[in-house]
Every structure is written in structure tokens, then in C-alpha cells.
């Protein structure tokens, strides 16, 4: 194998093996925090040695062995310290027990990846902590890569990760599958964390921020792994389809200077046809199986958009129906907002604006820029330029996203110019 090809496949292999190795080491040593450090060291050692010496025959076993050796060294020095301090003779670490039972290859590695995900997305953790820990422990990213992606200093991210690990240690979560009762809820937390990672990457992949768009790829990779482990869980398939169908539009959603291009104005020939085909097949198959959830419905909406060759071909009545179902499923004002847009496309802007009235009274939405932005858009569609300008400006003043503020300000400026010309 040449060094160049190893560089690529080796990295993928390492990332894939990372959670399995970590799972095996935690299973043996029962110490998440120390095991995580030891596995990171083993991964680094592999990244240095494999390109030169070639990938070992049993890469997983190799990594486990190196990580376990680190753990043993650590246990030894810990014991030595205690011995010095208390002069209590303790039995020497049983390192002869380490390797054979760890890498028994009995299919445990599949479960280990899932158990790790359940641990990292534990409800006891804050969302930023869960995200960082998932990317590091399950995704195999380095702390520096995660820090880059979230635009914080590496020391800050290291601290966030180590606090998360301590929290898991303190909570005493056992390293095993959640019970059937817990499972649905815990799986929901896992999917939510994966969704947030995707969103952070996808939504931020504006302009030169390429590091952040890697997060979207990482989220897709992780969700695909979960889907392979749980192919029959509909919401997992739904989330994977949603990510694929959304990510397919990434090349078209920004212009040359990183400016946002709304869905209706995107060059659809730039959309990734393969991703769309995969996503559509996945969601079609999933929806036919029965149990319908929010990710599946959102994926179905994305599929309807992606299947329209031109914006004007969009099957808006179907989107109205899908958002209607979503509305019944969850009390989320963002869903109502999207429903209103679809209704406006089918029945005209006044019908959409009517639906927005109720949202203005909703505390969660009242001061939100998205409400103003959508209102502005519908008012513009209705031909009420002056009111639209006021709403675009209000939205621009409330958003905390620079590309979005640029977009909204430009919309207001264009309409103002049109008014002045009359």
C-alpha cells in the first residue's frame, strides 16, 4: 500500500475503529475518562506508525492493545503513587488478562459503538458538552479539530470535553445498553445531538468556513453508522434521509461571495443528484413501513423540494399536507412558520399571513427574527412593499447571523430602491 492511499483509507479506518476500541477498553477498565485519553493516544500512535509500517493485520486488536498498555501504565503509576503515599502493598496490575478477552471479536464491537453514543448523548450533559464528547469519543476527531469547528480555543474545548467526561464518571452511568424502557428516550437524545452537529455544519458552511462544513459530513457519517446498526428504526432512517436531502443542496445555497441564495433562486443543476437519489429511496422505503416521526416528515418535505426540477414545479399542496401532519405531532412554532409559507404558496399570501397572526402571540416566537423575515417575504409576495421593507429591517436587526443579516438588509434595500423609482 502506498503512503498516499494509506493516508486516506487509514484515516477513515481509524475513525471507524475509534468507538469500537474505546468501548472495548471501557468495558475492561470501567473508567471512561482514562480510557478516552488512552484511546486518543493509541489513535495518534497509529496515525504516525501505520503510514510508515503499513496497517497491521488486525488493526482493531492493535489499537486495543496499545490503549490497554497505556491504561496499565497509568494504573501502575497510580498504584506506585499510592504505595509511596500509604505504604500499602497492593497486588500488581493483572495485565495478563488484558488483550485476549478484549478483542474476542464476538460482535461486541457493534454494540459498543451504540453504547458509547448513548453515553456521550446522556441527558446529564449539556448539549455543547454532548456534541463535543460525541465528536471526540465516537467520531474520533481530535480536540483541535473540534475546537476549530466551533471557533473556540483548543484549551477551552479540551476543558469542555474533560468536564463532560468527569460528569459521566460522576453520574455512574454503567457501560451497557439502556433498558428497553429507557431506549426510545435515549435514542431521541442521540438523534438530536447528531441533528445539531449536522445543522451546525450545514448552516454555517458559508464562505471560507470549510472546517465547519466538515461537521455536516461527520454528522452524516455517524448517522449512517447508527443506521447500519439499527436499520429497522424508522426515525434513524428519517434523520439520515433528511441530512442527505438537505446536504445535497449545499453547493447551490451560497453565491461566489458566500451570500445566501434562497431555495427558489438556487441553480438546481448544482444539486447533488446521487445524494438526492439515496435520500429519496431511503425515505420512500421508510414511510411505507408505518411508524411515522418528525425526522421522516421533514425528510419527506426535503424530498418534495429536491424532486422539483424548477422552483415552480414544487408540489406545494403536498408540503402543506406534510407540515399539517408535523404540526399535529409537535407544538413547534418553527413548524407553524413553515406551514404558513407553504399555505401562502398554495392559497395566496393573505392565507399565510393569517396563520402568522397566531404566532405573533406565541411567546417563543414573538421577538424572533424568523417571524419578521417570513412576514416580510409574504408581504412582498402580496405586493405590500412598504410593510415588507419594515419587516425585513426588523428581521435584520434581530438576527445574529451575518450572512442572514446581509441577505435581509439587501432585500430591504432593493425594495426601497423600487419604491423610490416610482
Amino acid at each position: 500500500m502506498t503512503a498516499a492511499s494509506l493516508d486516506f483509507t487509514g484515516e477513515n479506518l481509524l475513525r471507524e475503529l475509534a468507538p469500537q476500541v474505546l468501548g472495548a477498553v471501557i468495558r475492561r477498565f470501567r473508567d471512561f475518562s482514562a480510557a478516552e485519553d488512552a484511546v486518543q493516544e493509541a489513535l495518534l500512535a497509529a496515525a504516525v506508525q501505520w503510514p510508515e509500517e503499513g496497517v497491521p493485520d488486525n488493526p482493531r486488536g492493535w489499537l486495543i492493545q496499545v490503549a490497554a498498555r497505556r491504561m496499565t501504565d497509568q494504573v501502575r503509576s497510580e498504584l506506585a503513587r499510592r504505595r509511596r503515599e500509604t505504604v500499602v502493598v497492593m497486588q500488581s496490575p493483572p495485565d495478563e488478562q488484558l488483550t485476549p478477552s478484549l478483542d474476542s471479536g464476538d460482535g461486541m464491537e457493534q454494540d459498543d459503538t451504540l453504547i458509547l453514543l448513548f453515553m456521550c448523548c446522556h441527558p446529564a450533559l449539556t448539549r455543547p458538552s454532548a456534541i463535543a464528547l460525541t465528536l471526540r469519543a465516537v467520531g474520533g476527531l481530535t480536540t483541535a479539530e473540534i475546537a476549530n469547528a466551533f471557533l473556540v480555543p483548543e484549551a477551552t474545548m479540551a476543558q469542555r470535553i474533560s468536564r463532560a467526561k468527569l460528569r459521566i464518571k460522576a453520574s455512574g452511568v454503567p457501560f451497557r445498553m439502556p433498558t428497553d424502557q429507557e431506549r426510545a428516550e435515549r435514542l431521541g437524545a442521540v438523534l438530536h445531538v447528531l441533528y445539531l452537529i449536522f445543522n451546525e455544519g450545514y448552516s454555517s458552511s458559508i464562505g471560507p468556513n470549510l472546517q465547519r462544513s466538515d461537521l455536516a459530513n461527520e454528522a452524516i457519517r455517524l448517522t449512517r453508522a447508527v443506521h447500519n446498526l439499527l436499520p429497522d428504526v424508522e426515525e434513524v432512517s428519517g434523520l439520515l434521509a433528511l441530512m442527505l436531502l438537505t446536504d445535497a443542496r449545499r453547493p447551490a445555497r451560497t453565491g461566489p461571495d458566500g451570500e445566501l441564495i434562497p431555495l427558489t433562486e438556487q441553480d438546481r443543476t448544482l444539486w447533488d443528484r446521487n445524494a438526492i437519489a439515496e435520500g429519496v429511496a431511503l425515505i420512500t422505503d421508510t414511510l411505507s413501513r408505518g411508524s411515522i416521526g418528525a425526522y421522516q416528515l421533514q425528510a419527506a418535505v426535503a424530498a418534495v423540494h429536491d424532486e422539483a426540477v424548477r422552483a415552480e414545479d414544487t408540489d406545494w399542496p403536498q408540503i402543506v399536507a406534510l407540515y399539517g401532519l408535523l404540526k399535529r405531532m409537535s407544538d413547534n412554532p418553527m413548524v407553524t412558520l413553515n406551514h404558513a409559507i407553504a399555505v401562502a404558496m398554495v392559497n395566496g399570501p393573505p392565507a399565510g399571513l393569517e396563520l402568522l397572526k397566531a404566532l405573533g402571540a406565541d411567546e417563543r416566537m414573538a421577538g424572533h427574527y424568523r417571524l419578521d423575515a417570513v412576514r416580510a417575504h409574504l408581504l412582498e409576495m402580496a405586493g405590500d412593499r412598504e410593510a415588507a421593507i419594515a419587516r425585513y429591517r426588523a428581521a435584520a436587526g434581530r438576527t445574529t447571523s451575518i450572512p442572514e443579516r446581509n441577505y435581509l438588509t439587501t432585500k430591504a434595500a432593493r425594495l426601497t430602491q423600487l419604491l423610490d423609482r416610482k
Partner: protein
Amino acid sequence: MKFMLMMHAPRGTGDWSVFKWPPEDLKAHINFMKRFAKELKDAGELVAAEGLAAPDQARVVRARKGGGPEVTDGPFPEAKEFLAGYWIVDVESPEQAYEIAARASAAPGPGGAPLNLRIEVREVMSAPPVDL
């Protein structure tokens, strides 16, 4: 969510009033600031923090007609306060940022009494845009 916390100090006679503090009070203040920065770092919340040089070193720059800097002494004489330093923190909510700002505002001054400096809290434009 990232927030910038800007600490404003009263301008007074134009100098840093800290130069007139007793050394032990100054030391207590400096130690507080060091400890505060370390706490933010340990909590995984610190993005950046800087203290600024004394205001008599401040200059105000404007573009000259035809380009190039036009430099004058600053800050503006009518300003009652000047920016003494800032922190950028990455937290989960505005409330957490306000909490941190309140801690900074309570930095000890002469006699160890809290200074209660004014801290302006502004969200950094780092939120991801949603699809339009």
C-alpha cells in the same frame, strides 16, 4: 452562543484611577482578574479576553481625504467612560452571559469593595443562518 462582555471604567480625570489605589488593593484586583479568567477557561467558556492599555495612550483614527490615517488623541473628551477590557465567552444562553458579566462587575476596588463597573453585553454574530 458567543457574547462579548465589555468592561467600561469611569473616565474621571482622564487617567486610570487604579494608579492611585493602595498596592494591596491593586494586587487583590489583579488576582481577582486572573482567577476569573482561569475560572472561565476551566469551565470551557472562555474564547478570548484582553485588557486594554491606559486611555492616555488611546488614539482616534480616521481616513484622511485621499487615503491614509489621520490620528488624533482619544478617546473623545466628552466620553464619561472608556473601554478597559473585554471577554468573549461561549455559553448556552444570554442569562449565563449576564451571570458572568455580573461576576466581572463585582471585581474588587479600593478597600476591597466591589467596583460595580458597567459591563456591556453584546452577542457576537456567530449564529448559523437557517435555510431561507
